[in-house]
């Protein structure tokens, strides 16, 4: 087990109220020492007794991040039995994220799901009767880690990271083949080529890492397209979400013939919400154009809200919509929970697939909106929703892993510049490969040996 210092946001990541950031491990106090300044400049964190609360500011270098209260707990008298610090800040996603990042840069690592509780248990803090609960937490963590890993995605970010990994693996396999079979494969001039490749990879990684920091996604919004058959309740949903009668809602199917666009701030994330024409086969020329545009919009969406009218049977128009959903991030909304249900969640699952989260709502009665909000937020902070079709990192663990990978590549570059022998490169190359694997939820296994054998002809 790793007993390094871990950090996580202990409160819900939202724009409201107070946010709590918890740090646990040997370096908790020294990290705090670096980023926290008392109002009274003479005071030192290390001089403060356990179980005390202090008021001051958190800084990233010279930049003031927030006014905070910190709570100090020295091990073994803390939940994890390790030195623990809690930072209560003013909340707000940007601020919390900046503090989190600063703590990580000072040497902490983002905690795995359930890791605080796990440590509490392994360190003997929790007794046996509570152990079952611990297992539940870990199990939930197990599931969440799987869900939040990008391997579930087919998005642009995952593809980029796969490309980084493949490139690194290929180069490593080439190096290893040459080391294994020096009489067949020569490394003359290879360092220079590798250096070029790595420079370009590191630059690409930098772009991805920076995408986390610029906060554009929070300013510009996630492009969210509402999709469904005519009269499924799309426009009602839009109206409920934005709280005004912007879209024309009638009983007549096919009322929305063009795209309506709204800005919406939902649980700290801004959405660019687009209502579309209902998808159906139609003879009406104007409506046909609307349907075509809806498809186009869906094609470029970051997130699709698929509204299903559960009071009507599914038909071939739903089949048409399913095609659009492929490879997209989707939340299925089972609408009209106020009416008699003809289509069950299971029936929808069978037709559309079970991979998408489903929420039962009634746009008319404004029910289920909180669930929808939570779901969108969860997807976003797990990094499952990408932004504007660009590669944007939204999960801090992904960002940390990318940074580690990039650092490893720069170390290879150092080794090359310093004239180290080629076998030294592979140490850091494989570190980079592993860091990226962490994002995808894939570990090393036999990848390297497979790659060597499949790509390079070696052997007697």
């Amino acid at each position, binding site marked *: *087990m*790793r007993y390094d210092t871990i950090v996580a946001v202990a409160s819900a990541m939202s724009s409201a109220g107070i946010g709590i950031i918890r740090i646990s491990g040997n370096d908790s106090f020294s990290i705090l020492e670096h980023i926290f300044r008392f109002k009274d400049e003479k005071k030192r964190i290390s001089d403060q007794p356990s179980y005390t609360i202090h008021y001051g500011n958190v800084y990233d270098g010279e930049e003031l991040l927030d006014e905070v209260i910190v709570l100090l707990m020295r091990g073994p008298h803390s939940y994890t039995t390790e030195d623990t610090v809690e930072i209560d800040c003013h909340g707000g996603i940007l601020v919390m994220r900046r503090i989190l990042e600063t703590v990580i840069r000072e040497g902490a690592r983002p905690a*795995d799901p359930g890791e605080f509780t*796990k440590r509490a*248990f*392994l360190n003997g803090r929790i007794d*046996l009767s509570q*152990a079952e609960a*611990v*297992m*539940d937490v*870990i*199990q939930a*963590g*197990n599931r969440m*880690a*799987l869900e939040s890993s990008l391997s579930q995605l087919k998005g642009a970010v995952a593809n980029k990271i796969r490309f980084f990994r493949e490139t690194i693996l290929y180069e490593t396999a080439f190096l*290893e083949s040459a*080391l*294994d*079979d*020096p*009489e*067949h494969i020569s*490394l003359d001039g290879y360092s220079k080529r590798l250096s070029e490749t790595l420079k370009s990879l590191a630059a690409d990684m930098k772009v991805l890492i920076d995408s986390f920091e610029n906060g554009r996604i929070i300013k510009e919004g996630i492009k969210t397209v509402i999709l469904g058959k005519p009269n499924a309740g799309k426009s009602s949903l839009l109206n409920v979400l934005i709280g005004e009668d912007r879209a024309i809602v009638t009983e007549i199917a096919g009322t929305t013939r063009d795209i309506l666009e709204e800005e919406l701030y939902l649980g700290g994330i801004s959405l660019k919400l687009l209502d579309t024409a209902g998808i159906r086969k139609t003879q009406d020329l104007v409506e046909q154009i609307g349907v075509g545009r809806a498809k186009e919009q869906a094609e470029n969406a970051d997130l699709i809200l698929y509204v299903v009218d559960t009071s009507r049977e599914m038909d071939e128009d739903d089949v048409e919509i399913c095609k659009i959903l492929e490879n997209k991030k989707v939340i299925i909304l089972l609408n009209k929970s106020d009416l008699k249900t003809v289509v069950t969640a299971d029936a929808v699952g069978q037709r559309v697939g079970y991979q998408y989260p489903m929420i039962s709502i009634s746009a008319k009665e404004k029910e289920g909106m909180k669930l929808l909000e939570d779901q969108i937020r969860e997807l976003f902070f797990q990094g499952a929703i990408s932004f504007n079709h660009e590669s944007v990192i939204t999960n801090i663990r992904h960002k940390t892993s990318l940074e580690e990978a990039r650092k490893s590549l720069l170390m290879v570059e150092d080794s090359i510049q*310093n*004239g*180290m*022998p*080629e*076998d*030294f490169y*592979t*140490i850091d190359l*494989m570190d980079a490969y592993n860091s990226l694997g962490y994002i995808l*939820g894939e*570990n090393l*296994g*036999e990848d*390297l*040996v497979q790659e*060597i*054998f*499949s790509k390079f*002809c*070696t*052997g*007697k």
Partner: protein
Amino acid sequence: MKFIYKEDCQVIVVGAGHAGCEAALACARLGIKTVMFTVSIDSIALMPCNPNIGGTSKGHLVREIDALGGEMGKNIDRTFIQSKMLNISKGPAVHSLRAQADKSEYSRSMRRVLENTDNLSIVQAEVTEILSENGQVLGVRTYSGAVYFAKAVILCTGTYLKARCIYGEVSNATGPNGLQAANYLTDSLKALGIEMLRFKTGTPARIDKRSVDFSKMEEQKGDERIEPFSFTTDSEEIQKEQVSCWLTYTNEKTHDIIRNNLDRSPLYSGMIEGTGPRYCPSIEDKVVKFADKDRHQVFIEPEGLYTNEMYVGGMSSSLPEDVQHKMYSSVAGLENVRIVRNAYAIEYDCIDPRQLYPTLEFRNISGLFSGGQFNGSSGYEEAAAQGLLAGINAARKILGKEQIVLDRSQAYIGVLIDDLVTKENKEPYRMMTSRAEYRLLLRQDNADIRLTKIGYDVGLISEERYQFLLEKERQIQEEIHRIKHVNIGTGEKVQELLKAADSTPLTSGSTLGELIRRPELNYDLLAPLDPNRPVLLKGVAEQVNINVKYEGYINRQKKQIEQFKKMEKKKIPENFSYKEVPSLRIEARQKLELYRPVSIGQASRISGVSPADISVLVVYLEQQRRKQHIERN
């Protein structure tokens, strides 16, 4: 009438190949009465494939075997005819020694050692049955019905079990080199509940030296200064005249011949069912798989000093005889080649080694050990390494001593055995330096420092050799400390030396240690600036140089090893039931049930077991430990 062997016999070794030899020698040298069986006394330590010992990563294994008190290193030092340190332009971790052996001398020399070792008897007979009772091995029965009782049996049957040699439409039920196969033991093993696999490997043709035109080939000479394998060999005594190897290439014509006859290859016609090694592809495999390459290297290597046979490295094949003739004679320099022995593929029975503990003892039969190609590995060196460990552990079991398991941070042998008993293996397993994650520390130059203490504790290393090692270690530490504190000024002598070595001049003072870190400099080169350098034991200077030069990397690797060791220390109880762990994913549970890892560390290396599963397992084990603790009190 049934014969029962009446003399004292504690360990039986089945097979006299490279694994069997090391196993039998280890047992006998530890004072255990040992009987070694072979189907033919003339095939002891036979090298039926390539005529060399060592090579990348395999050279490491030989050094480790030697450091633990095995015989392979000494034997090749006695019988090599060419020697070369590979990868010398790369880092020290991948330097690998490789020697061409005089095959028959190698075999003869090993036989002499075996025959003159106390406690060791050699018997020519085929073992057909393993005798056991209640999960405890009792001995063996031979083809004639003779019974030998023993406390432990070590299986080192190599490629002989139900062996079949194949080329083209021809299939012979023989072992390598036309030797008698062992056709009965498999059934006995199956009856004991042991799961068998069928693997395949191959060897190229042997050709008559007189029919080769060397003028069309590049000469490959040995090193000018020969380095021995064994830490005990005096390098002065082994400097000798060496024999050359020769390099030539296949060409498009060769490839056409192969492509046009693929339908006659038993591999492609489905006649061969065994799984072949990807790292040692036949020439037909290479041509098919790497179709864009217009040539492949071919090494013509001598098989010995007193034979005209030469080995055609790089062109193993199972194509029919007539195609082989056409194919070989299309290669530059082989136009008039005369084939002495055909190339062939060989199929044989081996076990799925996941049935073994990391001690190389079968999980389900106490006292039954195994090593070598029988365990699904390939190569003489891999075999010898396992044989040595199986021998040591069989002997220690009889002596009531703790079993020896080398871990991945200690030795290539550790990596080899851990991979075999942990990972799914679909082809004969070959050692590679890339398999060793801590290879910077597992170098061939420091095998003695890593392992000789263990060999001494086991009882295979003499007091004298052990004392030498301790003194060597002491000198290394002292000298590293000293050179880090030797200050070098910016005097004329210093700048001149730097200039001569193409190194940037010093603008301010530096220590010797700092200068050594420069890639173009090293410990020996800086001797003129170091007047107080003491006289050091053999090998000390090399260790000082490497440890200082690569200190940063070495320290990083040491940290990784600390993490690794923590996981290895968390043991999983032998009869642990994974069914009771509530939150394990089904795939992980099935894999863990199947492999039954001995530690959390080993569990984490099983494919299909995720870090989250390991987390669950750690928490559950801790829960159990505490429950038991409460119950006890």
